[in-house]
């Protein structure tokens, strides 16, 4: 575990709120949360289903509007008011979604996903051999063979392969921040550990900030530097993973930890 108190902040929020519905049905899915994510930090946001994790991540990505509050990106107020500014913002922040089967356009070959990344990097005019080389390199980073995958449709791949390809996409784009919204919850247990290892590798090699969203506090303890615990749209507790999990203060955190009986035992990698 590293100490991030003096690291450069790359994404900070103050009073960030998202309200859904009107009148009687009005509810705050995310309720005045403050956070401070640093460069190269592996942050986990932990909470039960429905606690507002996905809503927060969509706000951070700029996919939905923020009802109230302020988000700073790399020390400056985030400005995504125009399409051009959004496009620029998305060069710095990218995502991996929960359901790999829903993340791909099923009418297009998987090549198009990687080719889009090259285009976004500004490598759209390279000769195809060069592009092929880059895509092969990205795929080998996640233990996939591009030559075997090219010209295939998404539904011809397994869930684990699809999610690894999503990481290959991140490898090509090299954003400052990666938001991974429960990337392992829909895939088989074998692929899970690999995916987590790859996320750690991305952080170590490129100094990427990883915001890892999960409902599994054990998993968060295993991978993260900092943990934010979310309950009903609020952060009830946050701090270094060791501190929060070995010495929890909030009752909600204690309950989450009690639901994972193995937390104080020796970590067995096959369970993650």
């Amino acid at each position, binding site marked *: 575990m590293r100490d991030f108190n003096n690291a450069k902040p790359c994404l900070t929020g103050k009073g960030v709120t998202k309200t859904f519905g009107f009148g009687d049905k009005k509810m705050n899915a995310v309720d005045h949360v403050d956070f401070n994510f640093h460069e190269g930090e592996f942050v986990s946001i932990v909470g039960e289903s429905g606690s507002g994790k996905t809503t927060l991540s969509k706000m951070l*990505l700029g996919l939905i509007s923020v009802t109230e509050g302020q988000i700073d990106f790399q020390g400056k107020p985030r400005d995504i008011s125009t399409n051009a500014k959004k496009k620029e913002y998305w060069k710095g922040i990218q*995502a991996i979604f929960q*359901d790999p089967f829903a993340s791909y*356009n099923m*009418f297009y070959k998987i090549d198009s*996903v990687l080719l*889009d990344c090259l285009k976004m990097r500004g490598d759209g005019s390279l000769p195809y051999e060069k592009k092929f080389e880059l895509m092969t390199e990205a795929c080998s980073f996640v233990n996939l063979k591009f030559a075997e995958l090219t010209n295939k449709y998404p539904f011809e791949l397994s869930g684990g392969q699809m999610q690894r390809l999503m990481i290959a996409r991140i490898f090509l784009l090299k954003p400052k921040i990666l938001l991974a919204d429960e990337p392992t919850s829909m895939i088989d247990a074998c692929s899970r550990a690999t995916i987590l290892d790859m996320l750690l590798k991305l952080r170590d090699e490129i100094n990427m900030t990883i915001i890892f969203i999960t409902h599994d506090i054990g998993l968060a303890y295993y991978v993260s530097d900092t943990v934010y615990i979310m309950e009903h749209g609020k952060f009830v507790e946050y701090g270094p993973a060791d501190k929060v999990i070995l010495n929890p203060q909030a009752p909600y955190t204690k309950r989450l930890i009690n639901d994972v009986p193995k937390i104080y035992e020796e970590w067995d990698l096959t369970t993650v």
Partner: protein
Amino acid sequence: MKNTIKQAFHSSKFVTGFVIFMFVLVTIFVYPLIVTRDPLEMVGQGNFFKPGTYVAVSDVVGTNSNYRLNVDTSAAKLETGLSVENRAMMADWLEKYGEVPASDIDVTDAESLVALWNEKYDPKTVIKGMTIAVRNQYMRLNNQIQHALKDSGVIIAEKNEETGELEEAKSYDGREFVNQGDLPNTQTFLLGTDNFGRDVLTELVAATKVSLGVGIIAGVIATIIGLILGLLAGYVGGFVDNLITFITNLFTVIPSFVLLILISYSVSESARGTTMVGILIGITAWPWTTRSVRSQVISLRNRDHVNLSKLSGHSMMRIVFTDILPYIASYVVMAFILQISSGILAEAQLSMLGLGPSTTTTATLGLMMNWATQYSAHTSGTWWAYFPVILVIALISFSLNLMNTGLDQIFNPQLRD
């Protein structure tokens, strides 16, 4: 795409509908190649000739017949030749003066009635109390019966130009027959003729083609408007969505058929051709396509593949065309099929009200119905003028709906039982 089409042809409902629809399509394109007559040509003079083959009378007489059949034609002649009044008169006489009990007389059996008559009736006997006028009436009836029984046939006479006298040109007896194939002029009207003496079958085929065209024009317009508005409302959301939803609801509250009647009424009769009617139907039929496309798009726009496309910096247009449209394409095809079907029905309904295409150069299914109704085909028992039209309308909408159900079962498998 190829897969979907292949899948569609595994659905028995879709295939049945498709086959029926193809049958209609092939008919409307092949039939005119065989029967080249103008579908609106008035072949018959007079209205509602019943279905059958028509033979030129002069040709029957003029044909050299070598066919002498040993068939007694008198029975058939009696059966059709003795009118109901004559039969009643015969029964009356037999009962009153022939002393035959009423129960023995059967006016429906011409042969036994005539036999009974021949047995009892003698023109020479004078019955007391009978006036001469009545007696003569019975004698004329007797002559008529005896004539019908005679097999001697007819004489064809020609007028001599010089003397003005009639001369026998030919004579035929009752046993001479003509082979139908030897006749130069026969006309078969499988479905008879309509009120204007036009061949119903030929007209029906032409009308089906025009009505299908009206349906397709209406379907294309309704689907394009519905698709564009639905995509805008669903994807852009916000104010655009509110505005479009408001307009759509407005159109839903006012039944589109009422609107269609009002608009059709206000378009001048001369401008109301078949294309115009198709356009009018199309611009009043889009609301439900808009509503269903909108709800489909709303459920799609928050999908992760759309989010990923946004994160990849794709423009809104590109996202709509590559990430939304392909996902709703099958749905739009289904909506289009239903729009064609309801467009054909709308044309028929409009035409029944006299607000359909005002044209004398083409027929539509609705116009055929309208003509048949105006000339009271339904009360005069001339079923061939309207029943086949109803059948074709039913067949087309049945086949289109069947195709739609088949597709629906493929795209929404949870509905399958």
